[in-house]
């Protein structure tokens, strides 16, 4: 009798499944608890990767409940890549399907974004003073090179405050509000900044290659009170601007 890897895998991920025939101990008896070693290794290592990768979500739902969710996730959705740095890429959708709200799923998205930023390619930022040296008539058509470590997580909830409070072990004090999380990586450690939704629209437009004037117009359409200074400061402080490309004034 041949034990296929399909049979082996299916039994690994289903604790109720019988141990496949053809797996034995030294005396030729059914493998029993010996197969459970593999079952446990697989599920425990995958669950542990999620515990490490989603500390704020774990704190928000509680360690025991998160462990149970992580084990259920490991059995239903094993990773599709051997790169465990990407473990849990589908956890936000899994949490929503399990009945958790978008507020929690967005914290999971932010934790994924922080991990992606941590592993993103290195780039040299522009000197923050360089932006101030661009003449006003050239600002409209200025395009910014954006670092690959930049991530944006727009949310209808206070995703940044919620994650921060969870990591600090404190109750979330502020009232819920829409926030866009900006993730930058000024050195090796990602920094998370809360932006207003219109600021998020602005940075997203810049990241897609829109000229500064167009990005400001899109953000202003979202919120007439929008001004770009705070978002630009956050980008400069985060080392997220890698080039300034001006076009000749018309």
């Amino acid at each position, binding site marked *: 009798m*041949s034990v296929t*890897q399909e049979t082996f895998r299916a039994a690994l991920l289903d604790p109720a499944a019988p141990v496949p025939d053809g797996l034995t101990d030294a005396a030729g*008896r059914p493998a029993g608890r010996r197969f459970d070693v*593999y079952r446990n290794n697989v599920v425990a290592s995958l669950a542990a990767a999620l515990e490490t990768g989603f500390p704020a979500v774990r704190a928000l739902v509680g360690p025991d409940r998160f462990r149970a969710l992580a084990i259920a996730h490991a059995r239903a959705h094993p990773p599709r890549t*051997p790169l465990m740095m990407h473990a849990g890429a589908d956890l936000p959708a899994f949490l929503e399907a399990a009945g958790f709200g978008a507020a929690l799923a967005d914290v999971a998205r932010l934790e994924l974004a922080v991990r992606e930023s941590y592993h993103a390619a290195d780039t040299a930022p522009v000197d923050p003073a360089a932006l101030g040296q661009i003449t006003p008539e050239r600002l409209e058509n200025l395009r910014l090179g954006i670092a690959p470590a930049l991530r944006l997580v727009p949310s209808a909830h206070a995703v940044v405050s919620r994650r921060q409070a969870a990591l600090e072990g404190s109750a979330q004090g502020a009232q819920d509000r829409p926030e866009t999380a900006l993730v930058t990586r000024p050195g090796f450690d990602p920094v998370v900044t809360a932006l207003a939704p219109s600021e998020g629209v602005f940075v997203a437009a810049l990241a897609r290659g829109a000229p500064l004037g167009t990005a400001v117009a899109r953000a202003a359409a979202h919120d007439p009170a929008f001004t770009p200074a705070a978002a630009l400061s956050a980008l400069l402080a985060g080392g997220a601007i890698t080039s300034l490309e001006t076009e000749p004034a018309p």
Partner: protein
Amino acid sequence: MLDSTRTCTLPDAPGVGFKACHFEAVTSAPGAVRWLEIHAENYLGDGGRPQAQLAALAERFPLSVHGVGLSIGAERGLDPDHLARVAGLVDRLRPASFSEHLAWSTHDTAFLNDLLPLPYTEVTLDRVCTHVDQVQAALNRPILLENPSTYLSFAESAITETDFLREITDRTGCGLLLDVNNVFVSATNLGTDPRAYLAAFPMERVGEIHLGGHDAQEDEHGAPLLIDSHGREVADPVWTLYAEAIAAAGPRPTLIEWDTDVPDWATLAAEATRAEAILARVPA
């Protein structure tokens, strides 16, 4: 087949599995540690601290790149994208050694993050040799293949593990990575003699030795069931087997693996010092 004479250029000295928490210590006070091993899959990101640390280590130590995700023992074909990523890392780093496992971890697209066992038959032998050939072609170098820890037997197995490994190395030109803890764990779990296993092992093809800790449990019949946990000191019977193996075959690059419940640097370095003392008693 590739020329295996330069399979591994690590020194016949102790190394340890590198953990990021030890970066400062290993670069300032390496002690007996002369080389480092990294898991390929942890260094396939584009940049940031992991790549910066790796570049700094590569300037200072010979490196061994140890793959844990190529799934050479898989029934299905190798993942070409993953193989290309690993080849890119090896090409950039030019490490002293590249090694992988006689095991599988991926089926279809599901990565199971464990080193899973395969039966030893003519069919699986052909398939593993094909996969080793493909890996060696992609990496443009011979690799070392590691003997697994085993918790159970396949009724269909028709070839001993040592004959299986010898045949792979003969057909593909790959070298072998001898994990002495895995030998002890498997022999205990399968009720066989670890010394007989080592006597049958093709030591002339061994380019690296692994030593790690294991946990002890029992199965439902009260028989010993050792788990290859890499979470504690190397056990005394494993040190004894290691000393006997290199006394007979000569010194080899020797790695201390400690991957879970990672200790402080002094504790890990002490294990390397213990290996160094045993290596020092072996004529080169």
